[in-house]
């Protein structure tokens, strides 16, 4: 069977492989090479070694974007997961209207980042107008605006995953704990949370990687204003590429660093989930 199938390579594999080459393999290899070059377009690149990488570390905007991203991710990871988990607990108690609640909480997740960003920009500005200021007047407003937006968008998604996890906890385990006289807090911390650890790991990493890669929402909500103070890593890379002539190489070098950070997060997740699977 393998032999007959093997002859069908052009039909089964070639279309995907062609598209994959154009959209990923060639751009990726070129991207790594271009990060060591000075260039305006991809056809006139000149090799210059590590210059672009050295320039990054003198770039205040990049360091600021990195710190901003770290701070944003830390706050969002905690808030999103806490709220999502509490909501999931509330929605697995078989209260009236559970389906309606779940539907409403999940909707924001389906709306695109650009549109979400502008909805919140308009609403936050409408509120701040009463205090005669705007979202872009102060970087703190932008920071919390992004955190609120992220929560609004991600809570429903994470909640759905936690609900699925909680529903898989065997009821006899919980009943046994109750018969043994465990309080509901004890059941929560000693039975439910250990049993949904896999869901918690998944959700933590999904929020980390979504926070780190956030772009559309950032562009729409503040576009980095005031003076690039609320620009996150992805937006900083974008504006280095397209906002500063002569800095395309530096932009590409930043993109390579960004890739390494994101890949490190993803690999850690893989290692942790793998080792958990073995234990069970």
């Amino acid at each position, binding site marked *: 069977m393998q032999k007959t199938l093997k002859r069908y390579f052009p039909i089964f594999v070639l279309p995907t492989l062609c598209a994959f080459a*154009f959209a990923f393999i*060639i751009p990726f290899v070129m991207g790594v090479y271009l990060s060591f070059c000075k260039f305006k377009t991809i056809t006139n690149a000149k090799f210059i070694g590590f210059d672009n990488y050295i320039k990054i570390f003198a770039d205040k905007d990049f360091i600021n974007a990195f710190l901003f991203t770290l701070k944003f991710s830390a706050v969002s990871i905690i808030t999103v997961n806490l709220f999502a988990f509490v909501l999931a607990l509330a929605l697995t108690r078989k209260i009236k209207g559970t389906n309606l609640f779940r539907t409403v909480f999940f909707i*924001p997740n389906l709306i695109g980042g650009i549109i979400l960003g502008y909805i919140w920009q308009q609403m936050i500005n409408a509120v701040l107008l009463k205090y005669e200021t705007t979202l872009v007047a102060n970087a703190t407003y932008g920071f919390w605006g992004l955190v609120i937006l992220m929560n609004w968008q991600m809570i429903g998604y994470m909640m759905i995953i936690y609900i699925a996890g909680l529903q898989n906890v065997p009821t006899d385990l919980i009943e046994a704990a109750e018969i043994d006289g465990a309080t509901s807090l004890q059941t929560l911390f000693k039975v439910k949370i250990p049993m949904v650890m896999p869901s918690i790991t998944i959700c933590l990493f999904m929020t980390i990687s979504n926070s780190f890669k956030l772009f559309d929402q950032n562009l729409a909500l503040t576009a980095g204003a005031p003076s690039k103070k609320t620009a996150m890593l992805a937006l900083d890379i974008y504006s280095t590429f397209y906002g500063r002539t002569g800095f395309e190489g530096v932009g590409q070098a930043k993109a390579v660093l960004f*890739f390494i950070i994101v890949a490190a997060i993803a690999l850690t997740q893989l290692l942790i989930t793998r080792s958990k699977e073995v234990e069970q």
Partner: protein
Amino acid sequence: MKAKKISDAIIFVILCVLVVLFITPVYFVVMNSFKGKLYISDNPFALPTAETFSRLTNYINGIQKTNFFGAFGWSLFITVFSVAAILLFTSMTAYYIIRVKGRVTSILYYMFVFSMIVPFQMVMFSMSKLANLTHLNNPVGIVFLYLGFGAGQSLFMFSGFIKSIPLEIEEAAMIDGCNPLQTFFGVVMPILKPTAITVSILNAMWIWNDYLLPYLVIGLSTPYKTIPVAVQYLVGSYGAKDMGAMMAILVMSIVPIIIFYLACQKYIIEGVVAGAVKG
């Protein structure tokens, strides 16, 4: 039991408050989309009154300025054809990679998996320049690029499922005289249906909302703008901002998503859970 009833009642009230908070932003844009653009800032959360009500002016302005129905059409075209291409081609490739064991297929597999962890920023510049050079900067070219950039995750999910399909069924089909194409479409494809639904939902959500790829590849000056690109164009580059038109366009961008969600809620929720656990 009584204690549970009381705490359930308290939780119910809190949930209702949260629902109101969650709906507020949507309520806000809907209300203001019906107000004259000069009145929007006065009392942003109030219902339109006889004085501030602007009928459909904002909608007409917004639709004209962004060519909204054109953008809707291109978003639909790109999403539908990209998802169809991803479903068809990545499931075939995944099947080949799993069933033909060898060095080539395992290298291919690891390359596809590797692409999953690479952020778009890493390839965006060279990909969009390459697309310009090779004349892929049109809606059909974008479908091709989405197939390539989305292949990794979809292929990963398909191959995970194909591994669990017993070989005997396919062997029986082969003995009955089916060629690999007939076996795949007649026997394997129907079994893949649950994964196919998950893959379609996840890709449709991504492609419909994606801004950067169509923006960088097609740009602002063409008639092929998708909805996110058209929204950014209306808000970002217009000198005098027309807040009313903006609110109207934001509402019109949300409505199709909400209709789609209410129609296929079951599949979307299942797809999202399955995607999170496997991806």
